[in-house]
C-alpha cells in the first residue's frame, strides 16, 4: 500500500506539489494523469526516496520513506520496480546485464539464478534473443520493454511506470499497455502508472487520479473520470484548452 498525504514539493521558486494526497491500494493499478510538467514523475520519485518531500508524508507498506535508514531504503527499493520514462538503460551494458543489475543486489541469488531470471524477464517482455544487444542498438519500443524487464527482475511488489508509452507509435503503445496488464496478472504487482496518454490509462487502470495544480483534482474509476463534470478534467480529457479558459 502506497499512501501520500499532504505532500509539498518545490524546486527553488517553482512549487510542484501543494498538498498532494493519493492512495494506491494493494493489488490495484492506479493511473496518475495530468498535463506535462504537472509533477507526475515527481510523485514517483518521492515513493522510492529519490526525492524528499518538503512537507507531508510518503509511506510505503506503512513505513515513512523519509525516515528509512540506507539499508531499509535499499530493501524498499528492491520491492519497487521503477520503469523510467526513457527507460534509463545503462548504455554501457547489454540488455541482459541491465536486467541482471538489480538481481545482483538481491541477497542469496546464485549466478545461475541471476542469469536464468534475467532470461525469463526478457522473455516476458518478448525480447528473448536480444539480450546481447546494447541499448543503442534497439528501437524505442524495445528499450521501453527492456526497461520494464529490468524493473520486474527483482519480482517487485510495486511497479511504478513513468510515462510508459510516451513517444511510441499507436501499435507499440497498445503492446506496452497489454504488457502492463499481463505483468499485473503474472507477478501480481501493485501498479502506479504515470501517463498523459488516456488510452493506456483507460486500458490498464482500476482507478485514475487527475493531478492538477499540485493536487489530486479527481480520483475515480476510469468510467467515472470519462464522464466527469469537472471542467478542468473535461478540458484535459477532451483536449480542449478553451474549457480551462472559461474556468479562469
Amino acid at each position, binding site marked *: 500500500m502506497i499512501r501520500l498525504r499532504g505532500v509539498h514539493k518545490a524546486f527553488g521558486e517553482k512549487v510542484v506539489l501543494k498538498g498532494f494526497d493519493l492512495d494506491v491500494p494493494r493489488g490495484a493499478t492506479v493511473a496518475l494523469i495530468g498535463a506535462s510538467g504537472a509533477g507526475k514523475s515527481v510523485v514517483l520519485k518521492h515513493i522510492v526516496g529519490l526525492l524528499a518531500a518538503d512537507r507531508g508524508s510518503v509511506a510505503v507498506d506503512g513505513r515513512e520513506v523519509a525516515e528509512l535508514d540506507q539499508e531499509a531504503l535499499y530493501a524498499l*527499493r528492491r520491492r519497487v520496480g*521503477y520503469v523510467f520514462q526513457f527507460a534509463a538503460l545503462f548504455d554501457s551494458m547489454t540488455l541482459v546485464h541491465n536486467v541482471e543489475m538489480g538481481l545482483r543486489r538481491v541477497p542469496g541469488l546464485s549466478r545461475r539464478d541471476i542469469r536464468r531470471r534475467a532470461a525469463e524477464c526478457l522473455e516476458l517482455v518478448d525480447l528473448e534473443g536480444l539480450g546481447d544487444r546494447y541499448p543503442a542498438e534497439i528501437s524505442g519500443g524495445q528499450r521501453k520493454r527492456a526497461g520494464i524487464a529490468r524493473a520486474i527482475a527483482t519480482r517487485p511488489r510495486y511497479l511504478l511506470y513513468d510515462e510508459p508509452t510516451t513517444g511510441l507509435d499507436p501499435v507499440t503503445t497498445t503492446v506496452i499497455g497489454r504488457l502492463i496488464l499481463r505483468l499485473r496478472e503474472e507477478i501480481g504487482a501493485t501498479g502506479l502508472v504515470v501517463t498523459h496518454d488516456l488510452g493506456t490509462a483507460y486500458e490498464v487502470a482500476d482507478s485514475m487520479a487527475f493531478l492538477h495544480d499540485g493536487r489530486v483534482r479527481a480520483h475515480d474509476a476510469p468510467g467515472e473520470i470519462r464522464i466527469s463534470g469537472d471542467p478542468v478534467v473535461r478540458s484535459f480529457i477532451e483536449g480542449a484548452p478553451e474549457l480551462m479558459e472559461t474556468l479562469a
Partner: protein
Amino acid sequence: MPGKTLDFVGATGRAALRFAGTVGEWGVLMQDTIRGLRAVRIWRHLVFEQMMRIGVASVPIALFIAAFTGIVLALQASYTFTGAVPVYLVGSLVGKTMIIELGPVLTGLALAGRVGASIAAELGTMRVTEQIDALETMAYDPAAYLVLPRVLAGAVMFPAVTLLASALGIVAGWLTAIQLLEMSTPEFVRGLETFFVPFDVVFSVIKSFSFGLTVTSLGCFFGFRTRGGAAGVGRAATSAVVASSMVILVFDAFWAAVLL
C-alpha cells in the same frame, strides 16, 4: 551610490556563499564515496575497468606531452645557459623539472581535460537520462558504484602515468641534448645525477596522487550535479575541466610549500 555599493557587496556575498555551498556539496559526495568503501562487492569489479579507461588509455597523450616538454626544456635550457654556466646543467634542469614539476602538472592538466571531461560527460549523461536514478532504484549506491571506482583508479593510475611521462620526458630531453645540442650522454647524465634525490620521485607521486583524486572526484561531482540535457552535459564537462585545472595548480603550489 550607497545602493550600488550594497549591490556589489551583496553580489560578492552571494558568490562566496554559492562557492562555499558548492564545496560543501562536493564534500558530501566525498563523504558518501568514503562511506561507499564498505560496499566492496559493488565497486570491486569496476576498479580495473576504470583504471584501464583513466590510466592506460591516457598513457599515449601523457607520453606525447611529456616527450615534447622534454625536447623544449632541453632546447630552452641550452638557450638560457650561455657563457659561464656549464652545459651539463641542461641535464639537471630537464631531469629535475620533469620529475618534480612538469611531469605531474602537465600530466595532471592533460588528464583533467581527457579524464575529467569524460567522467563529467559520462556521469552527466547518466544523470540527465535518469540512469543514476535507475541505479538508486535498483538499490545501488551511486557513490560506491560510479564515484569510488573512478576516484580509486585515478589515485592509483595518475602517479603511474606521471612516472612514465616524466621518464619519457627525460629521455626526450636527453635525445635532444645529444642530437641537437652537441652535448654528450655522460654530460647529460652527469647533470641528471647532480641534483637528483630519490625524494623527488616520492614528491612526484604524492603530487600526482592528489591530482588524480582531484580530477576524478571533480569530474564525478560535476557529472552528478548536471541539469538540463545535452547543454547541461557540456557545461558539466567544462566546469569539471576548469575546476580541476585550477585545483591542480593550487595543489601544486600547496605541495611545493608544504613538502619542499
